[in-house]
């Protein structure tokens, strides 16, 4: 009996060991991807800040006019641009994003533009209307693809397919913490702290018209930077998850080894007792 349990334990040790190998490999892959992804994220930051300032200035200028990208209209339907990962095994990375969407949407009908295979699968299963299913790869999504994406959003918005556009992405704060960010893209929310309205600015075109022209460009830049940010978060989350998985596997192995040795010791003791008992007879 002790022999059988020894064999069981040995099998379990082996299976945990092979799992540990996989988690360890995934951790290493995540670590090496992280550096490049972080670099990309850093590079995308300046555009995001600079274009935001310019956008806010233009929005403040045409506040009282009726501009489709700025003036809110009654919300019949919302669009969520959801950025999730391509694969699982990244801790709560994917599920946190989906939870944020579910918490935010309330009763308003919505459609989704999913980015990342996990998001596509999730909303496909839920039977939600999807704007496009072409964006399953988040890693290395090029700027030009983002432009196509942005045009998809602005065209749909102008055609009245949806009345509000929200972006749900993950913000990379540090290796340890990533936070979910839900922000409104369209209509552009006017800044809380009133930007100084610089009336002296000479506009080549009417501000409203200019805004209409550059909105897809800015949106593309915003999406690109959100994608970079989310991808870094995904990789960081995966690294953390795999790190603790590897540690857990190590702990399990040492626990199982202890049990194995005890079982072995027990078997030997029993054998000796049997032999001694046999000799005494």
């Amino acid at each position: 009996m002790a022999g059988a349990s020894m064999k069981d334990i040995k099998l379990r040790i082996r299976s945990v060991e092979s799992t540990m190998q996989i988690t360890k490999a995934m951790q290493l892959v995540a670590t090496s991807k992280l550096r490049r992804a972080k670099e990309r994220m850093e590079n995308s930051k300046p555009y995001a800040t600079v274009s935001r300032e310019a956008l806010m200035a233009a929005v403040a200028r045409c506040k009282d006019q009726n501009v489709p990208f700025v003036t809110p209209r009654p919300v019949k339907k919302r669009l969520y641009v959801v950025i999730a990962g391509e694969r699982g095994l990244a801790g709560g990375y994917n599920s946190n994003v989906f939870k944020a969407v579910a918490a935010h949407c309330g009763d308003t009908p919505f459609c989704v533009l999913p980015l990342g295979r996990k998001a596509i699968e999730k909303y496909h299963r839920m039977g939600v209307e999807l704007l496009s299913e072409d964006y399953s790869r988040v890693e290395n999504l090029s700027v030009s693809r983002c432009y196509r994406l942005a045009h998809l959003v602005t065209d749909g918005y102008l055609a009245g397919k949806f009345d509000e556009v929200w972006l749900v992405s993950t913000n990379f704060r540090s290796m340890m913490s990533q936070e979910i960010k839900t922000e409104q893209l369209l209509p552009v929310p006017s800044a809380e702290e009133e930007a100084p309205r610089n009336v002296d600015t000479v506009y080549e075109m009417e501000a409203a018209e200019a805004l209409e022209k550059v909105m897809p460009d800015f949106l593309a830049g915003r999406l690109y930077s959100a994608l970079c940010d989310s991808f870094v978060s995904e990789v960081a989350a995966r690294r953390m998850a795999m790190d603790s998985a590897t540690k857990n596997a190590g702990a399990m192995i040492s626990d199982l080894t202890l049990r194995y040795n005890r079982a072995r010791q027990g078997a030997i003791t029993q054998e000796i007792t049997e032999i001694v008992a046999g000799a005494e007879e």
Partner: protein
Amino acid sequence: MAAYHLQIVTPDRMVFDGQAERLIVRTVNGDVCILARHIDYAAPLGIGVARVTDEKGDTRVAACSGGMLSVSKGEARLIATTFEWADEIDAERAAHAQQAAEEKLRAMQKDDVDYALAEAKLKRALIRQLAKG
């Protein structure tokens, strides 16, 4: 000549951040030249060749398309969709893109949804080659 602070950004990187004497860039209404102490200004960009003269007086040429130019409080910001210095441009690739776009345009009707897109592609390819010189 007096210099001013110029920033050129594209979504994937900061292309230029420093002092410049002069910037010539194509807006939707034609070329504009920004010198120091320019009035506050904003314009959407077209597709064209851009020229940046830095504080030492060296001029660099680039292909620039899309986005917006804004000048405020004496600082200029070029928020471009694409901005490539001439020495970064792959002439062969641009020529290739030109051919592909031309073929596409020939096969299309004028009212096709992708017509404007292909047209913009062709324009970009031509400008790239022009900037390359």
